[in-house]
């Protein structure tokens, strides 16, 4: 962990003291929360970052009062977590804080979707990661390759975990890399493609770390990719479906996401490259038979991506426009249309050999 536990606690205490002083002065107490709307997200060229805009959350304001109270409930809860040295999930936190207010039928929180954004508010306000607040994020993702690590005192060899691979935990800050024998990292969106490549021992043949995000990359997986890429100077190739959602998954791995722009520098891997699928691949590899008609929502999403600053490379503009114009998309599995081992034996080797990547 970059920031020590004590530092996090004192950040929480500073917030409390500031509010207490305001109250003692008879002022309407408020918390300054950096705005996370698209309008305050800035693309630095390297990654997505938060701008300067700040929203003030007041207690004595009808539209803010409840959120103000909830923010303080979460803040004091986290202080207790840290002091007791225990981790928990967002859902457990929700249940722990959920309570009916005395003399009323109102709850502190009704649903988890009220407490989740409060955690993000605290992250940006205090400039800490939720993991540092001892709140664990979603767990998703598996990895194999010739890598040996130490985690919680255990020595784990990623090349010797059978067909399962290593399940990536939510917190990888404390993982120590003992041995890394790989020339690049292949990040695969989908589990089925991962299994195909794993069975075909792609990682052994091509000397790479093979990682699946199982959909949108969880924070643990993103941080793991970043650490491996930076600490061992490994190129990262991302392999997703040929559709706006797959491409956005790639952009999140590379630049970070809008809602987590405040921690892009700790989660993003700006050196990542996109290996496929592209719409151009459909022509190059003759996949026409296995494309899917794009839905309206796909087209709409593609049009949004077209305008994002970090999709302004001419190659991406070309792909996006091609997709909108043809109204089609394709899944990784479309490659199986050409034969089950087509992806292992033809598609990926060709793309890597020709350095046929998108920026």
């Amino acid at each position: 962990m970059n920031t020590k536990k004590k530092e996090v606690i004192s950040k929480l205490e500073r917030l409390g003291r500031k509010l207490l002083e305001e109250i003692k002065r008879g002022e309407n107490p408020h918390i300054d929360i950096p705005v996370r709307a698209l309008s305050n997200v800035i693309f630095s060229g390297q990654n997505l970052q938060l701008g300067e805009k700040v929203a003030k959350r007041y207690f004595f304001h009808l539209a803010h009062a409840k959120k103000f109270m909830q923010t303080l409930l979460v803040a004091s809860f986290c202080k207790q977590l840290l002091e007791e040295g225990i981790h928990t999930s967002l859902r457990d936190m929700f249940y722990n804080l959920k309570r009916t207010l005395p003399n009323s039928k109102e709850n502190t929180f009704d649903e988890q979707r009220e407490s989740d954004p409060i955690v993000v508010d605290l992250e940006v306000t205090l400039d800490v990661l939720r993991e540092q607040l001892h709140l664990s994020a979603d767990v998703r993702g598996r990895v194999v390759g010739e890598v040996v690590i130490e985690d919680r005192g255990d020595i784990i060899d990623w090349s010797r975990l059978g067909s399962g691979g290593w399940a990536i935990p939510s917190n990888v800050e404390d993982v120590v890399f003992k041995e890394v024998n790989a020339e690049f990292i292949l990040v695969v969106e989908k589990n089925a493609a991962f299994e195909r490549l794993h069975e075909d021992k792609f990682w052994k043949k091509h000397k790479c770390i093979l990682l699946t995000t199982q959909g949108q990359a969880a924070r643990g997986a993103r941080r793991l990719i970043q650490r491996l890429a930076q600490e061992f100077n490994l190129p990262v190739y991302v392999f997703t479906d040929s559709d706006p959602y797959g491409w956005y998954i790639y952009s999140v791995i590379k630049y970070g996401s809008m809602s987590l722009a405040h921690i892009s520098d700790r989660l993003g891997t700006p050196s990542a490259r996109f290996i496929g699928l592209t719409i151009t691949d459909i022509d190059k590899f003759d996949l026409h038979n296995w494309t899917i008609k794009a839905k309206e929502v796909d087209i709409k999403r593609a049009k949004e991506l077209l305008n994002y600053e970090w999709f302004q490379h001419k190659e991406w503009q070309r792909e996006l426009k091609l997709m909108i114009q043809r109204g089609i998309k394709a899944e990784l599995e479309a490659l199986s249309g050409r034969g089950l081992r087509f992806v292992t034996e033809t598609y990926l080797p060709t793309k890597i050999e020709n350095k046929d990547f998108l920026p």
Partner: protein
Amino acid sequence: MPKNAAEKIAKAMKEISIAEFFEKNRHLLGFDNPSKALLMVVKEAVDNSLDACEEARILPEIIVKIKKLEENRFKVIVEDNGPGIVKEKVPEVFGKLLFGSKFHLGRQTRGQQGIGISAAVLYAQLTTGKPAVIISRTSPDKPAYVFHIKIDILKNKPIVLKEEKTENFREHGVRVELEIEGRYVQKHHSVDEYLKQTAIINPHARIIYYNPNGEKIEFKRSVDHLPPLPKIIKPHPHGVEFGIFERMIKITSSRTIASFLTNDFSRIGRDTAVKICVKAGIKPDKPPHKLTHEEIEKLYKVIQQTKFIAPPLDCLSPLGEEEFKKGIQQVVKPEFVVAVSRPTTVYRGNPFKIEACIAWGGEIKAEGPAKIMRFANRVPLLYQSGACAITKAVQEVNWSNYDIPKEGNMPTGPIVIAVHMASVWIPYTSESKEAIASYPEIVKEIKLALQECGRKLAAYLRKQRRLQEREMKRKIFERYIPEVAASLSILTGENKETIIKYLELIAIKNIMKGEGEKHEHEKEGSNQQT
């Protein structure tokens, strides 16, 4: 073609009596089915009573009794304290269709066509064969007369079966007794509902009602003065069609065409009359009956192109905003009520006035669509709501502007919407007088009245909401302060009770502050973590 076909057909030709015609076409008069027929009989009698009392400047007191004789057979008695009907005219009023005092009147009345009450007599005769029994007395100095009357349908003439004096009757007034086939219902289109709405729109009337179950229901007066008697007016020059204009010229007693224009119309002065004649190329002193068809046409065209001031408006008997509100309050018992009387305006040369009243809350039921009450010349309209200009206007108003939710195209909630149209000539969609035709000028006026009511209601509702909001704010802070204090206590180590005291001080200051004040509003992205 057989020989003499035309002659054979000609032999069959004969004149048809109007009574015979309506006997076959009684649905045109509203006697479609037994339950509606019962209502129509009560309605025609009560309308006549109210008209007569107003004409004679008497505060009306009307007794309605319905007795059930057998399943589907009723005796209906309506008695008033009006001026009575002179003995000689009683038979024709009740025994001859298309006979009356109000048809040619240029003034607002309830009945107008001279068909209503005699149609009821016709219906009674058709279904039970019983004569109408009428008692009438015109003054305490004179005796009361009892008549037993039927209608000679082939001749449209009254048959007087009996005529005798009686002492046993009030000082003046009329009592009508009819025996009919009918059916008594208590829901939407019932006699009960009709009398209730009649009481609303005639707050100066006292109505005592004995229903078929023997219950007595009394609607008290909520206003103790009569509405002013509307004046009789001459037609407005823009209010006559060519055919009528031509006929007026033929039958006028004026000696010159200029004096015809001045005398037989309202709003044409001597100078204007002469100017019109000159423009039409007709000598102003030409006798009217010497005009050729072409000259009449020319004259008519010039009149249509000439501007006149609007017709005089005192021929109407509007309710008045206060009276409308009182009528509604007395019967509906709402939390809030607002009424609007629109300025009189003109439709086809006929002056008319729209009044609207909206009641909210109180004893009005909150579920389902708003209740709409439609009135024309102080008469409730119960049937054919869907075909009526009032319903159309209600549906066209954008109620969401006034924070009133809509379901389909009807406003919903604890609302009663009442609209009254007063006019010399109401354009009903049928002789049964159940719906007002949707002429654009009329729909527009109704909408304007409803919109004004809507704005006032919305203002009231907004004020209520502000008060509620302030109360809500107080409660919310009261509830959140201990939570915030406990959390801050954990974060800072400060004593919880101390923090609560500070916060309560700020809260009091804050609740009393104007609600309009704005804090810099938070803007937060709605994106979840990705």
